[in-house]
């Protein structure tokens, strides 16, 4: 159980670090596209590791014979899968909608997608 606790602490450290990087990147970057880049990628990565820490703890208690933790472990895996599928798709939809609504990148000289309708 000590080894599993160590693994969980490492996962929690990685997850909190990337979540804070994403939250501060939302304030530090100049326009909407770079904010989307920072916030979505960093918080998805950090949340994956935080949920992995929960999964490791629940699986460790489950392996000791406490079968009531099996539901916790499996449902955490389901939550992780839901988060993985929805975050990437949602970020793509936000970026596409913002470009179609005419949002310009800050300090951009050339917009390669100008005038194209990629539907």
């Amino acid at each position: 159980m000590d080894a599993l606790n160590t693994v969980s602490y490492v996962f929690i450290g990685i997850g909190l670090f990337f979540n804070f990087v994403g939250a501060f990147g939302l304030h530090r970057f100049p326009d909407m596209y770079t904010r989307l880049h920072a916030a979505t990628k960093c918080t998805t990565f950090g949340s994956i590791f935080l949920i992995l820490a929960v999964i490791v703890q629940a699986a460790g208690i489950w392996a000791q014979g406490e079968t009531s933790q099996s539901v916790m472990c499996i449902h955490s895996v389901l939550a992780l899968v839901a988060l993985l599928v929805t975050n990437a798709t949602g970020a793509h939809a936000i970026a596409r909608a913002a470009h179609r609504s005419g949002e310009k990148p800050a300090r951009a000289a050339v917009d390669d997608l100008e005038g194209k309708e990629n539907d």
Partner: protein
Amino acid sequence: MIDWFPVVIAMAVCIIITVARIFIGPGAPTRLVAFDTTNTLVVATLVIVGMMFNHVIFIDVAIVYALLSFTMTLYVAKYIGGSKF
């Protein structure tokens, strides 16, 4: 056993930082980005709270919250993009 309470406090600080961007961010797309980020952090926090209180119902709520917030993101993105439903 791990003490999960400081982790929840740190995640709450992250959520407060992103909610501040919802209020100050110029324009609808920036606010939508901040709201999507907040939803991701809330899902992770709900899973941790479920482990802390040893209740599975929090994790079920987290799954449904993730799917519903994804639907909300898609519909608001369609509204911002100006396409017809």
